[in-house]
Structures are given as C-alpha cells and as structure tokens.
C-alpha cells in the first residue's frame, strides 16, 4: 500500500492533492469482493457527505456500498471503469481510482485512519 494515503474503516482510500481528494477502494477490499463487474459512481456535481453512501461496487458474488471518505463535490469520476471494472482488482490504487472530490472541510481528514491504523484493521480481520 502507498504511504501517503488515508483510509476509512470501510476500506476506501483517499489521496489528497491540493484541494482535491482522489478516492478508491483498497486491494484488501477488492480481494474480499472478488472479480468486480460493475461500479456505480455518483454524477459530477453531486455533493457528498463524509461516510455517506455514494455508490455501489458489484462483484460476481456480492454488492457493496461505496462510502465517501470526505465531504465535498464530485469533480471527476473514472469513466474507464464502465468498460473495464477489472481495473479495480488489477490496480486499485492507480488505474482503479474511482472519484475526484473537491474537499469541503480538510479537518475531516483527521477522522480517517492512517497507514498504520489501516494495516492494523486489516490484520485483525
């Protein structure tokens, strides 16, 4: 896992670049879900609330909600995932990115897990 990320308890990762946050799910989550076949993402302009449900990740065996790690406005979503949802399994931190959000409140990042805390979480599971 990359070191400059923050994580939610629901296995989303966040990479902050300026006032934008890139969001995806971790390799741990992707592995648990199995082959991902469909990702439903919120539309551009939608306002997200931290920890609210914003989308759906569908695999062959299960359907999982996607939670917003941070409040803000959706400025971009990964259109590659429509045709190639397997990118989430193959490259969850890179080409499998899901959303880009304009951060509404930076202090919310403090509520997220850091690298060590997330590793602890997945170790316990």
């Amino acid at each position, binding site marked *: 896992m990359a070191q400059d990320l923050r994580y939610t308890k629901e296995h989303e990762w966040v990479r902050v670049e300026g006032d934008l946050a890139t969001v995806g799910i971790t390799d741990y989550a992707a592995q648990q879900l199995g082959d991902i*076949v*469909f990702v*439903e993402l919120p539309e551009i302009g939608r306002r997200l609330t931290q920890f609210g449900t914003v989308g*759906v990740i*569908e*695999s062959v065996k*299960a*359907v999982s*909600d996607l939670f917003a790690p941070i409040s803000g406005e959706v400025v971009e979503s990964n259109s590659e995932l429509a045709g190639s949802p397997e990118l989430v399994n193959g490259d969850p931190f890179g080409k499998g990115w899901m959303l880009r959000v304009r951060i509404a409140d930076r202090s919310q990042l403090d509520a997220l897990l850091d690298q060590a805390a997330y590793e602890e979480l997945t170790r316990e599971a």
Partner: protein
Amino acid sequence: MAYGPHTPEDRSAMLEAIGVASVDELFADIPAALRASALKLPPPESEAELAGRLHHLAGRNRVDLVSFLGAGAYRHYVPAVVDQLLLRGEFYTAYTPYQPEISQGTLQTIYEYQSMMGELTGMDVVSASHYDGATATAEGALMTCRATRRERVLVSRGVHPHYRQTLCTYFAGADFVADEIPLLAEGPASGTTDLAALERMLADPERPVAGVVVANPSFLGLLEPMAKVADLAHAAGALFVAVVEPVSLAVLASPATYGADIACGEGQPLGIPLAYGGPYLGILACREPLVRQIPGRLVGMTTDVDGKRAFVMTLRAREQDIRREKASSNICTNQALCALAASIYLGAIGPHGLRDVAALGAARAVELERALAEAGAPRVHRGPYLNEFAVRVPDAPEVHRRLLARGVLAGLALAAVEPDDPSLADALLVCATEVTTPDEIEVFAWTLRDEIERGRQLSLPSLGEGAR
C-alpha cells in the same frame, strides 16, 4: 439424490442431531392460542366420488356464453401443441432452479422467450417475466423513479384501471407519487390522453417527473399518440413507459420505434387461457442503458470453460437474494410456465401467423362496430381502434345484465370500473378477436337490439297516463 419424502427414521435422526424431542417442540415459541389446530374438513371421499363432486361444481361455470369481453384479457385460439408441450414433466412441475445453471434446458426456454419478446417489442433487454401486466407496469414505473432519482410518475387514465390501482399499491410503500393524466373529453381524439394536460403536468418545476405511462391500445381500445408522448416526456427529462398488448405488436408500431424507454404488458393473449383471471404473464422490457434498473431475472447466453454455448442467470446482483433492501424489486421468480406457453405459441404460429391473428381480429371488430351501430349502439369515441372499442347503450349496466341472462357477455359495463367518468356511465367496452364468428356478432347485435327496444318501451309513459 433421492426425491422421496422423509421417513420416520430420517426424522428421528435429525431430531437427535439437534437435540430436540419432537418436531412440535420447534414451534414452542408460538403461543398455544395461535398454533394450528386440526382442520374441520368433511370425511375423505374416493377418487370417483371426489371427481363427481368437482365435476358438479365445475358445472356451475358459465362456459356457454357468446363473449365479447376483452378489457385486459383476450380470447384467442390456442393451438394444441402448446398444452401438449407444457404438460411435459420437465416443464409442468419443475420449480425455479436456485442453482439455475444446472437446468440448461429451462434457462434456454426463458432465453428464447426473452428473445421473442425482444423481437416483438424492439427493446434491447427483456426480463424473464413478471406476474402479470399490472405488476409489470408498476415495476416499470418504479424503474423510472430509480433511474431518474425523481419521485413523481404520470399515468394516463387510458391505462387499465386495475393497472393504475396496482401501481398505486406499489407506490404506497415507497415515497413516490402517481398523478393521473386526464383523457380528452371532446373532439375527434376524445378518449385519448390529453397531451396539453400532460405538457402542463410535466412543466411543474417543483415536482419533476420521473416517468410517463401510457397504454397503446388504451383500455378503451383507442390508439394513442405514443411518439408525441415520448417527445414530451423526454423534453422534460422523464422516461417513457409504454403499456402494450403483444398480439397488437404484430400490426402496430413497436414501442422501440416510438421512443419508449420501457415497455410492459400482459402476455395472456399469447397462448395462455383466460382461466378466470390467471395465472397470467407480465412482460417487461427496456433499453440497454436501463439494464441495471430492470427487476427480476435475466437469462443470458455465454460460453462455458470448454467453449460450449451455455445459458446463465445474469446480472444477479440486482436481485434481492444478493442485495436485500437495495434490490430493485422483491420479485425473485418469473412466470416460467406461462412464458413457455407464450414461446410455444409464438413459435407455432410464427410472425405471419401472429399478424393474421391481429388482422383478423381487427376485421371482425369493424364488422362488430357496424352491427352494433345498426342495432342502436354507436361508438362512444371517434378515434382509430384495433379490435376493442366502447359503444353507447342506454342504461348499459342493466342491459348488460339482461344480455348475460340471455347468454351474451356484452363486454364490460364501463360504469363498473370507471364510476367517476360520467361519459362512460352508459357505455359497454366490447372486443372482437380472430375467434369471434359472424354468427356470434349477429346474436349479439340481435339480442342487443331487442333489449334496447325493450328498454325504450319500458321507459315510455304508459297509455293511461298520457291520455289523462
């Protein structure tokens, strides 16, 4: 795998394994007052006695009527091949497979059904079927709310009143609203959906519309301006749900050609008997972009690990056995046997046969219109119809009752289902299909003329009064 029932030995072994003394003990949680008690049934009868009793009961059914009833379920000739194939054990008693890919044959029949409905409706995606036309329409309306994230649906009063009621029942659980689009009261297009009213209803900025639902032919038998409805709906960001009758699709424009996003309807006319109201067949279809919103099962075709063609239940995550409260519907089955009947029927008569069925029915309907007009019952509306229309008869409910006593089922007295519409108080909704014969039309017209005349005589002031 043995398919016999459990033996007493099986039962004891299971009870012992879970440490319970008897099966009754498993129901100990249920208060004694609520537990089932012995049923009060008459003593058992032999098969011969029971068959006699049922035969006697069946004798009370009226199967002798000369029928002109349509209104959502239609008389058609069902070729013998349909029943013969349906009776096969593999089809007749087989339950919905929960490891579906084991039953390749079953999946293939559903796939064929979906394919044929796809051809008829012109739509990209067809579900494995729903309970009936009413629930399919309700599901179609719910799809528009999910897809647009809006909460209001407009339903034409030209849609079958039972379908509208069912839609309201489905909506009552969710926070959605269904508003009715009125029909035109006057003019050459009277009885059809009021497009000006629809446009006004779509224009409310406070209450954006998710979907518009219109039937073609309508409940009153009239052809509706579907392409115009599609344009109006789409201009307002709403989806268009077309309620269609499958036999009519052989001669009328298909929902795909006039811009419908979702098509739904009743499949009973395709090889399924009237059977006093069911079981019937709900058809539901949509365009490709809505594939994740369509409820129910979808059967797909793919290849197995050896590269051979195989059928699968696809897009399962839409369904509630995987997605529970976020599923698109509670339906977890389909009308497999009825869908199979429809497929066999369509396969047996083919596209040309279906066109003949529709065209013959339409021709008979024209004869019926003429005969009834001459008998004193002209059409209520003026617009084009296919094989069903409303006629005006003074004191229609009473005339209907008297005709029934004389062996003629004179369609449907519209006052019964549309009590709020005064223009339909004295109307009968009548229908002709390819099985309607000229003799039957003559009997209907003659008997109707007689009853209308009798009604006129009864309403004249008596000679005694007039002379005073």
